[in-house]
């Protein structure tokens, strides 16, 4: 559904990189939909010279609208302001599997660069014809094609494309602009959506209003396992403003003219539930995870553990526990559904507009072609909004009501009903020699939930150890689990990187030195060396309260050094130095922003965050009982981008979260002498000073 007067249009395969690699988490998780249309429009140069890029990704804060605009602007030699980016609309954009796993720049951005490079080649050919000059004499510059030999001979894209309707196939081999010629990429770019954000004009799903829209208040179960036995709706139906109490199978909701009327009436629904109790509490969880672990899956195996442990001078065993945590994006999930005949339009801030379209088609028993999903800007997601049940709820209720319906989570809904990062119990056994060389590494991770790919992420050790076996188990989960930034990567890294510090302690080595002694990967060594140098590691470690950890995620390498202090009953993270290698950097400030955000988010999981529950009921139903980092908790963060321009871009939104909890735990040990193998640290912070 691109524009009629399109000028130059570049069409190409709808889904580069699909199907995902076998065994990849994306393949295991979300390959539930596949591209229907053979080809899709990726880019247009309009007759007025403006450029429109299309991508099925969504903008949820990571800055891809800006990143894509930067890439297209550089390839087409136009200003950033000349590029419009259309995202996440199943009727307008190429099919996409979903915005997760830090694939947007690596895959989709590359596809858009190729589309723009194809367009640039086409414009050069058109200009050669019009100017009667050889294409080899022409270059694109500032939205025009100009002769190299005679700068007076030039023609703008606008003049080239007036009244034209040209379609070209995306050329996979179109020459991409080399890094040395970038004028926009790699430079500081202001977000293209910044002014809309500071003036309140950015529209999120929570802000969408449709004529005649009814507000829904959905009857939610008190516990995960609860099933509705009966409901008395008579009181609710008599409340002011109530249009109806809609019922569609197990889904019951009050539909009213205002949000408050719906909520007030919903509180008067008299429901009885079956099976609402049972299951372990958060206190019994660690033991429960081990007891219910099944389906061992070996993610890494080298040499022989028996040989390794026999040869080792020292053997160390520890167990680590990481509780459930919640994403808690600032925008609670919402969806608005409107039927016109058999055509359904749903506004939903999901990370998978095409995925939820397929899910809705199945749930509603209609054809995908009759559903349009529009994704306004998303107010945070961090992986969690891959799960988006409110979209189908709104569609079902709107069908029953015969009117548009809005379903929106409250904050309590978001904390109680949204999926959590799986809790995990991880056992590590290492064998090492007196010089700190690790010779054996056994890692057994019990992650809760029914999605094994979450717990496998980041479980492999990056250290050069001859005898290794890493096994992940899938354990029963009393709570609903789902995606989180880096999936289980940050969980596995916490255990591994705290254990590395325990080895350093046992071997009497500096934690940075111990890591370097066991790392051969040059990109890994470089991020660690650069972070330690910039942090003045030796001096920080002498002062006490310094911690280090490294990590790899979505193809990018990261090292963090942190300084912590004790302030009364609290640990405060004062300073973080981050070094990240994510290859070619398209938008440096965008990457730095992601690194800072990852660190702050991970700081919350290290110090404060844990879901508490009993009998399948979540007990922290508001921010008062689920503390997340605030301005006063935020450390000073210095970020170094150390990747090479000739290395393809890899993910930037997740790598910095994987080492942060371990770095903080290691720093607290350095400060207090207390080793924290369970999170969150604030819950286990003892009073004993170091050495006591």
């Amino acid at each position, binding site marked *: 559904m691109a524009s009629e007067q399109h000028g130059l249009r570049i069409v190409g395969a709808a889904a580069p990189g699909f199907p995902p690699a076998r065994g990849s988490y994306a393949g295991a998780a979300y390959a539930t939909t596949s591209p229907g249309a053979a080809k899709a429009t990726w880019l247009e140069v309009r007759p007025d010279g403006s450029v429109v890029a299309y991508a099925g990704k969504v903008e949820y804060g990571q800055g891809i609208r800006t990143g894509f605009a930067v890439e297209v602007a550089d390839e087409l030699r136009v200003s950033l302001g000349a590029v419009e980016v259309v995202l996440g609309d199943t009727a307008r954009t190429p099919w996409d599997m979903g915005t997760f796993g830090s694939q947007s720049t690596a895959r989709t951005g590359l596809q858009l660069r190729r589309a723009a490079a194809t367009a640039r080649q086409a414009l050069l050919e058109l200009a050669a014809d019009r100017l009667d000059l050889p294409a080899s004499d022409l270059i694109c510059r500032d939205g025009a094609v100009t002769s190299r030999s005679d700068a007076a001979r030039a023609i703008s894209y606008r003049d080239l494309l007036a009244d034209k309707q040209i379609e070209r196939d995306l050329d996979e081999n179109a020459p991409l602009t080399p890094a040395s010629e970038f004028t926009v990429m790699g430079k500081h770019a202001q977000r293209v959506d910044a002014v809309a954000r500071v003036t309140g004009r950015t529209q999120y799903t*929570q802000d969408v*209003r449709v004529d005649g829209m009814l507000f829904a208040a959905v009857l939610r179960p008190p516990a995960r396992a609860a099933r509705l036995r009966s409901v008395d709706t008579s009181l609710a139906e008599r409340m002011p403003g109530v249009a109806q109490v809609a019922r569609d199978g197990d889904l019951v909701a009050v539909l009213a003219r205002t949000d408050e009327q719906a909520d007030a009436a919903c509180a008067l629904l008299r429901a009885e539930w079956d099976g609402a109790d049972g299951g372990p509490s958060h206190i019994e969880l660690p033991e429960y995870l081990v007891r219910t672990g099944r389906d061992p899956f070996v993610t890494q195996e080298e040499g022989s553990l028996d040989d390794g442990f026999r040869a080792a001078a020292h053997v160390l065993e520890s167990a680590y526990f990481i509780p459930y945590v919640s994403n808690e994006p*600032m*925008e609670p999930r919402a969806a608005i559904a409107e039927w016109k005949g058999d055509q359904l339009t749903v506004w939903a801030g999901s990370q998978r507009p095409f995925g939820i379209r397929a899910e809705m088609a199945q749930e509603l028993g209609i054809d995908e072609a009759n559903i349009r999903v529009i994704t306004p800007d998303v107010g945070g997601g961090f992986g969690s909004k891959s799960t988006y049940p409110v979209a189908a709820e709104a569609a079902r209720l709107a069908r029953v009501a015969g009117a548009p319906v809005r379903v929106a989570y409250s904050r309590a809904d978001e904390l109680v009903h949204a999926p959590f990062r799986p809790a995990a119990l991880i056992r590590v056994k290492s064998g090492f020699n007196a010089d700190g060389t690790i010779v054996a590494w056994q890692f057994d991770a019990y992650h809760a939930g029914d999605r094994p790919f979450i717990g496998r992420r980041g479980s492999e050790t990056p250290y050069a150890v001859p005898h290794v076996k890493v096994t992940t188990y899938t354990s029963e989960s009393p709570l609903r689990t789902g995606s989180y930034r880096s999936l289980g990567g940050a969980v596995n890294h916490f255990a591994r990187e705290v254990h590395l510090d325990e080895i350093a302690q046992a071997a009497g080595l500096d934690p940075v030195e111990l890591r370097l002694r066991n790392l051969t990967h040059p990109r890994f060594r470089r991020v660690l060396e650069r972070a330690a140098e910039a942090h003045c590691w030796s001096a920080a470690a002498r002062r006490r309260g310094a911690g280090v950890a490294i990590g790899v995620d979505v193809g990018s390498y990261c090292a963090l050094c942190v300084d912590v202090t004790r302030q009364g009953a609290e640990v405060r993270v004062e300073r973080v130095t981050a070094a990240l290698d994510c290859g070619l950097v398209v938008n440096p400030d965008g990457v730095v922003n992601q690194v800072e955000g990852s660190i702050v988010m991970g700081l919350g999981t290290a110090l404060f965050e844990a879901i508490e529950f009993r009998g399948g009921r979540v007990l922290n139903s508001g921010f008062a009982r689920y503390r997340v980092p605030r301005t006063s908790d935020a450390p000073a963060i210095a970020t170094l981008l150390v990747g090479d321009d000739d290395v393809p871009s890899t993910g930037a939104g997740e790598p910095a979260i994987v080492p942060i909890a371990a770095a903080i735990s290691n720093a607290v040990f350095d400060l207090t002498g207390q080793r924290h193998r369970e999170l969150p640290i604030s819950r286990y912070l003892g009073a004993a000073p170091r050495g006591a």
Partner: protein
Amino acid sequence: MDSLNINGQPYDVPDPSRNLLSFIRFDAGLTGTKYGCGEGLCGACTVLVDGQPVHSCTLTAGAVSGGSITTIEGLARDGELHPVQQAFVDENAMQCGYCIPGFVITSAALLQRDSHPDEAQIREALAQNMCRCGTYQRIVRAVECAAAAMEARHGE
């Protein structure tokens, strides 16, 4: 009947028990002010009532009847961004942006009552606002820049 003035426009308030945030968002249609928690704990719903920052989600419209309210839509004047807005843009102090209207309003109120806050005072003033994307460092820097810009402007 109760009434409110929002960004210079008069509004009737037929139901004084109406939640102020819902009134602003759904009745007045000014959706720049956000729902974040409904408990006054996250600051996304912050507006100015007679110049004072309040959490609109915890108030009724009747409680501020007759008051003059400024929302994020009313902060820019004559098409020119407020210095705080401009500083947030310049510093890329945002990611998803959902919390940003609340931060901008709170920051503007801070600089209205104290034109030279130090970093600790900025952090304290913003402690009621939550940014889950974790852009705090940028936000504090933006407020510092806005203070400097406002001082430079007054000096002209």
